[in-house]
């Protein structure tokens, strides 16, 4: 008897099989990777390379969100890229050994489109038969299991689920380059402390001296007003609501940013008493009240306690970083040695690529990453560095706590400390806390401290 009961609960193997077949038949989720961002907060690096292709250790940034999607069993992803970068982007997949199919959708970046504009651009690519759309930014590095977030989303019947994580300061400081005080007012997220329901989202800078919370008296749960939560820019949105918001006649048609405008709009719509834009759910409700006159809306039936829209924040306690500033880019690169197993499980490239040639008399510390085809000559000293693929370090060079991009050559005698080098150093020099993107700025025998050595814009 107990066995039979158990069977009832767990389902027989045949049933389970049937269920899994069904999942395969119809994809429930479509993924959109937003990779057209210009990287406005790290212009020193993005001047020469699109942001989504900047290397984190030896891999381009875009590989991380793609791998995240792949881990969750997604077979396809729509990647919004800046026009002209499609080929390079689609190469990322084979270059990194990913199996996910990438459908790159170029957008014209000359008009500086916002994330919402990008989404509008690819709206036609979203299949009509999926339930949810996963929107993920190309600069997300996280060890979250997307499957968990999807399960959370479905279990709560959520309209929109945002991935959040505690905001952690960079471990490796200071970042190279001139000393700046990176003050940006942080986002404010208001959630119900127990359920994680999103009550209010205000992007940093969009609030003044006071924040007004919507009245949510139906629930007794206290509200957590947090400025220390990172909005990871991973959203799972119901396709219907996304289409509503991106439609031409919608109230959001002028909104440019998904995070700063559309997300707060959707969240605030939870508490609007009467929704003019009726979705399919609301249609049903109106039909019920039309044909079933005995339905009397109770006193408790307010939009606050029941509404077609419910938004939640999934609070991830592990690693979650957005690589959108030089300090975070620097920090992630430096930490990649220890993180790579977590954020790219199953895909971790060896920290010393087999094709790398390291001279036996070279001293390379354990926690350094050496990419494919990199050549390290004798009498060099490399401690805690990231050397991307096809770099060349000549004899007598000394590198510490530094990050070298692909195809960077360091000539002999250079001393590089705590610097980000994206161009070959053809002259003997000393770099401390510098960012180098243009080697022509380097002069023989000079010492540079806290500088950005980049190509001078043409108009100067």
């Amino acid at each position, binding site marked *: 008897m107990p066995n039979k009961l158990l069977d009832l609960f767990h389902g027989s193997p045949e049933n389970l099989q049937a269920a899994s077949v069904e999942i395969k038949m119809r994809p429930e989720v479509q993924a959109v990777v937003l990779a057209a961002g210009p990287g406005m907060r790290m212009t020193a690096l993005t001047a020469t390379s699109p942001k989504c292709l900047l290397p984190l250790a030896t891999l381009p940034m875009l590989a991380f969100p793609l791998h995240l999607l792949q881990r969750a069993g997604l077979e396809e992803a729509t990647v919004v890229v800046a026009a002209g970068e499609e080929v390079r982007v689609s190469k990322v997949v084979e270059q990194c050994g990913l199996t996910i199919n990438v459908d790159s959708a170029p957008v014209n970046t000359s008009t500086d489109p916002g994330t919402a504009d990008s989404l509008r651009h690819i709206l036609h690519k979203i299949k009509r038969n999926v339930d949810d759309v996963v929107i993920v930014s190309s600069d997300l590095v996280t060890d979250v299991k997307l499957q968990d977030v999807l399960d959370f989303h479905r279990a709560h019947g959520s309209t929109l689920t945002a991935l959040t994580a505690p905001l952690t300061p960079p471990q490796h400081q200071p970042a190279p380059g001139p000393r700046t005080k990176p003050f940006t007012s942080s986002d404010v997220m208001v959630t119900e402390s127990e359920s994680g329901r999103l009550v209010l989202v205000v992007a940093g800078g969009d609030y003044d*001296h006071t*924040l*007004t*919370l919507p009245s949510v*008296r139906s629930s*007794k749960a*206290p509200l*957590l007003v947090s400025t*220390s939560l990172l909005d990871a820019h991973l959203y799972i949105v119901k396709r219907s609501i996304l289409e509503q918001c991106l439609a031409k006649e919608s109230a959001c048609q002028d909104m440019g940013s998904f995070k700063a405008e559309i997300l707060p709009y959707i969240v605030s719509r939870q508490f609007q008493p009467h929704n003019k834009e009726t979705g399919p759910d609301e249609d049903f409700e109106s039909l019920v009240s039309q044909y079933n006159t005995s339905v009397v809306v109770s006193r408790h039936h307010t939009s606050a306690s029941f509404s077609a829209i419910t938004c939640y924040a999934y609070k991830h306690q592990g690693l979650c970083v957005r690589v959108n500033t030089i300090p975070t880019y620097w920090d992630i690169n430096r930490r990649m040695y220890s993180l790579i197993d977590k954020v790219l499980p199953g895909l971790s490239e060896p920290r010393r690529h087999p094709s790398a040639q390291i001279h036996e008399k070279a001293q390379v510390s354990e926690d350094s990453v050496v990419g494919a085809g990199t050549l390290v000559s004798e009498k060099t000293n490399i401690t805690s560095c990231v050397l991307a693929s096809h770099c060349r370090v000549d004899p007598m060079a000394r590198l510490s706590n530094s990050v070298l991009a692909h195809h960077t050559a360091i000539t002999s005698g250079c001393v590089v400390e705590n610097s980000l080098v994206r161009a070959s150093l053809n002259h003997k020099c000393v770099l401390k806390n510098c960012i180098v993107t243009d080697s022509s700025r380097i002069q023989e025998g000079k010492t540079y401290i806290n500088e950005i050595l980049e190509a001078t814009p043409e108009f100067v």
Partner: protein
Amino acid sequence: MAPKVEVHEEPSVLQAVVLTECDIDYGAAITHYNPKVLVPLANTPLLDYTLAWLERCGVDEVIVYCRANPHTDKIKQHCKRFTSRREECGIKVMVVVSEDCLNLGDAMRDLYSKSLLKDDFILLQGDLVATLNLQDIVAKHKENRLSDKSMIMTCVYVNKPLETTAVEGEEGRGKEVTATLVTAADTGKLLLHRRSRNKSSKISIPTELFQASSDLLTYPAAYDPSLAICSEVVPSLFSDNFDYGSRDSLLRGVIEQEELLGYSIRCQVVQEGYACRASTLQQYQRVSGEVMRREAYPMVCESSLTSHRIRYTYDPFTTTYWEPSAKFTKGNGGASEAVVGAGTEVDAGSVIITCNFRGNGGASEAVVGAGTEVDAGAILTASVVGDHCTLADGVIANAAFIMNNVQIKSGCELSHCYIGDDVVLEKGVVVSSGCVVGPGVRLGPDVTIPPGTQLVAHPPHHHAPSTHPHDDFDETARVKEADPSICGSKGKAFILLPEESDQDDDEEEEESSDDGRSSGPDEGDSEDALMMMSDDEHSENEFRREVQESLTNGMRKKSAAENMVLEINASRHAYNVSMEDVLTTVTQGILRAGQTQKQDGSTEPTWPGINTALKCFADVLRNYVRKGRDQLLVLNAIEKLMVDSPEYLPATQKILFNLNQTFEILEGEVIIHWYKKGGAGTTAFTTIKTSIAQFIEWLEKDSEDEDDDDDSDDESS
């Protein structure tokens, strides 16, 4: 007398301070006869719930703090009875009586000066019914205090939704019940504390709070049982700053001046346990119901909280409690079927059981005290009946709270009301919701008491001595004879008007004016509606009342002149009154203050009283008299006072003489000028003229030979 408990010098003694003069009252119809904390809730005095809870939570010593009034002895005796049943190891209850305690702040200052508080203590109101786990709360408080020395107080809140907001919203005082809290998520430090004004209001959070803590925990409406764990710093803070009248004002002060004081307050929002204050009658009704429904377990109706013996029989099916000696008689007209059909019963003793088995299922929630006779035809729901009452056939009581020795004859309908001791309701009396029937009242037959009426057995002014008998705006109609149209042909009852109850209840008045005048306008609204005054008049009267209060208090406390001026100016700004009106009001107020002090029984102002008032406030008056014209205003004000209250007339000459000679506020010349011009031209001037003629004559003579005026002072006075 109270048990004089020796305070042992042990550091581990956990003390609790119970304030019996709660900030909100039940109204004079109840509290005139019985102090609020001794009003029985489900036939157990409110104070017992507090004491029993504190005892259970391991509190060693309770300080019951009360103001000196006729009820003090009752409270002392009650506490003595409570402790006399306990052995030496039991809870110790000390009653501390104070002459001039007006609010929580005064109580703290007084206890500080008496240095009765040794360590951390629990501060609560005597009308609290709670089952929270105090030990945990206190332990956490001490732990927090060890880690953060600046933390001086832990406020305890209960996070529960208020389902009955509709009930309490009627009075407008429900706002005291909940608070909006913003705390730091990691420490629980209180960053923002606001009384919720109305239910739908949105919460706005100043973003500067993010500098203090990146994560804020916001409680939109936490129930506030007025419970706090205080460190020894709190009483000293109260005595350092006399502006702190209530706990709210302390919270505000500490939060606003955090940099200055260097103190912080933490919150504990408790999810488990029960806590509710029977602060108003609406809340009283709510708490009664919840106690009957055993939400305050282990404090339940059937067990006595003083002796812990089982006093009532409890029927869990119908949530009814009755004393074994209560009789449920079979009345001739009481068809038990009808009772069963109505789904409620307190039926003939044996019938109760059968009713249950018939499955009528209605939880009637009733408590019936010892020796009470309830006819089978009576229907009780959510009601409490005290000892030795008689409820005849056909009585319908819904949420009625009936005290002891009450006789209710057939056909009476009671709903949501309070019936005091020894009340007799003749046949067919209908008591509507919100009514309070004071002790000894007789009503009926066949009358309907309109909702919200307060009835007392004696004409109001005998037992409710107003502090302002001479207020010209006190338009209370005083009923000398019971009006049969109100209380019925056999009845004896007088209506206690709401504003009357507000005024004689000066504890509440002063509380509200000390509360930063937050509730002042509210009360004003009700007064306004009743007196049908215009807004201007109203605010003027309100201002007058406040100044009068300040002066009366100031005289009692011997406040310094600067403080009085500050207080008066604050009132002036609050009501936007012109300087001239201020001067008039202050002058009259000072003279009235002299009279109120000497008012025992008689309302006549006596010269010694006026003289002390003048002495006391000469500096205050001087502050307002700056020009010659101001002196005229003072004289006119005195004259107008004579119009309203001619009993001052005999003292006029002495008043003027002292203002002129002793205090040198009025110049002789000005008085003579005023006199010659015919004063303010009111009807009283002719009488004043004759009564001060002698003084004027003397003044005129005096101004001729000024050199002698110093000597002649003594002769005339």
